């Protein structure tokens, strides 16, 4: 009866490990070095034309 439970717990650990590896990869790539700029980046670039018309 506990077999399925243990299987699920191990599975969840593996899933979690996948996320963890993804996180470690992100840190090593420097994705967490600048926490300010990215949130502004999405607002940029698309309204350049407006600036030209002004």
């Amino acid at each position: 009866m506990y077999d399925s439970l243990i299987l699920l717990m191990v599975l969840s650990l593996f899933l979690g490990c996948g996320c963890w590896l993804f996180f470690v990869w992100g840190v090593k790539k420097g994705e967490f070095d600048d926490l300010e700029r990215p949130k502004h980046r999405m607002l940029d670039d698309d309204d350049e034309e407006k600036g030209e018309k002004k």
Partner: protein
Amino acid sequence: MSVQPDICFHCGAQIPVGVVVEKQVEGATLRFCCKGCLGAYLLITGAGLSSFYTRRDTEEAGVGSNAYQAGFDDAGLAAFVRHSGHSDSIDVIIDGIRCAACVWLNETFIGRLDGVEQVRVNYATNRANIVYDPSRTTPATLFARISELGYLPRPYTRSAAQESADREQRDLLIRFGTAFFLTMQLMAYSFALYAGYFQGIGHEIKYILQLFSLLVTAPVIFYSGWPFLSGAWRGLKNSAPTMDLLIVIGALSSFLYSIYATFNGGEVYFETAAMIVTLILAGRLLENYAKRRACSGTERLLGLTVGTATRITGEHQEQVAIADIRTGDILLVGAGERFPVDGRIQEGSADVDESPATGEPLPVLKQTGDRLTAGSINLTGTVRIICDHPAADSFVARVARLVEEAQNRRAPIQGLADRIASLFVPGVLLLGLGTFFWQYRLLDNPLETALMTSLAVVLIACPCALGLATPTAIVAGTGAAAAAGVIFKGGDILERLSSITVTVFDKTGTVTCGTPQVQEIRPAPGIDPLELLTLAASVESGSLHPIARAIIGHAAESGAAQRSASGLRTVAGGGVSGMVEDSPVLVGNERFLRECGVPELPENQTTSPGGTMVFVARDGQYAGSIMLSDSLRDEARDVIAYFRKQQVRSLLLSGDRRETVQFTVDALGLEGGTGELTPADKTVRVEQLRAAGETVLMAGDGINDAPALSAADVGCAIAGGTDIAIETSDLVLARPDLSRLVTAHTIARHTMAIVRQNLGWAFIYNLVGIPLAMSGLLTPIYAAAAMALSSLCVVGNSLRLTVKRYV
């Protein structure tokens, strides 16, 4: 003249009187403070990026007015370029970035330049990484284009120390991330166990859950908690128990207890062990971020130290690195440049601002044969100098060595948390032993019960609240300080600042403005004072000399209209002559006017110490004089009064003349002052004070203050001061405003009050928890709940610091 200060459309700085540049745009008139700003405006709008002006969100003017002067050449920048494959890259600090729109503007603009392949600007550090094709563009072109935009680019190299700090930060982030992820998994098992505790649970399933808990907790303790383990070991080896040891005892005792309980039946404390490590890692991480933010803040305040100089060999001029200058080399130093080495003037004469080196506020005339000190600034004409000492022996280098010596002498100071830990750790261990003894011998409980009860006491006594008490308060405190324009370079500085007993001020540039101000106007009989001011201001209008700027500024304030002057001629160390409305006007010192044949100069008038007289003549007749002196900062008096109220003594140490120092001491109500001190003397004075048991705050801005700044318990530099002072200080005021020192001190005191409250709270938690644990009544579920509650209280209390508005 307008009463409302004119604001430059581009840079937002106040437009100095008489230099406004106007531009008609679609019917509206835009006003700029200089051609540079107008050029930048045209460049930005021309590139179709004019939405910058509506996007930006900034309140303060940033880059100084002389920011546009720096020149760049490829030879000098070559050392900063990194090669990879067919493209090169260079790291640049872009000065003047103040908001997200600036970042956007720079990224978009640089990205469109020919040959640029990729550009990324880091908003937090103002650092840009530019990847470009070396066959299509050069670093100097890029730099020139950035400075045309109105920003000041500086090459950036990572020092080994920064490199390792970056690595450490990433390492810490991974350790924290791992701990966080595993603790999440652990909580799922723990909740199942909690439910089992209340509703009943089968032995087998409980055992499985506990085994899984053990599996995920072990890496948290031994991988994520490694910094604490090694720190605790170091502390033990030096027989100085630290905070780390306390954390390790708490985590290890609950971990070992839980392993025992897993295999022998009973409740486990795994989540307590994992939580302690995770939460305290979070505190460390936050503290590190605050520190890095402070470092990049000071990085931005540092100016461009002269990296190269112009050497003359025969008819040939070349740019050489300062380290390559040899004794006897002939160098060319233009107006506005810093002298790179100590030397003598070979040809030419110039007014030299020596205030960074000596503290003397007024420029000194240097002529052929006069000695010059490295670090002082050439204000007027281009001169040729002969190098006396290579850069490694220059005045600045000698001061740098003094700084290093002072830093080496400074013993590390034990923080409050570590002081508490050194008492707490032995106390907790004794309590554990006592419990064991009490349970085993007096109550005759079995050995196992006695052992478990005493372990429970130890783990309850080492709560996370104690570990979180200091870091959270310090992060909140440094954050509040940064918002108020005060940059703390580390958390321990808040602690030291809150307990200072003596403040030592430098004079020039610290309690005074560092630039002369008009004090008094003495017209000759029959001449209107305003007229006198107008004449002087009109003739001085083109000059960069601090006295000229003071007179022009004063004229604008008092409403004296400037008239156009022609035929202006400057004599270094003398004055200026020119024509104002067909009458020749002379403005300068006494000797200059005498040499120009002006009769009837008044006899030596009394001047206050540190003051300078400027004489004015029209049509060859003496018209009056203007007295200037380096005036005290408006806020200096209040700052000193504040410190007196806090029972902190204030002293003045200056390189300036004794009478001037005494005058300042009397005017500000300081408790004492000494003049004519060399940089080494200042250091000795500070060290004497410290030896006498005082905690010393030193505030200064000059090269000559640097050794004393690093010798003091807390060194405070002021923005606009010299680089070396900013670098060697612990605390930087981001604006030249002394009242921020009061803000800094207030924040430091509040932060330490919060830390004490937090520690007090953790102590109360112990007071309740330990008796419960000793009697063996405490169950894991209550221990976990109490721990979460106390941690929340501590974090919430610390956050109060960020809510309060300083400034």
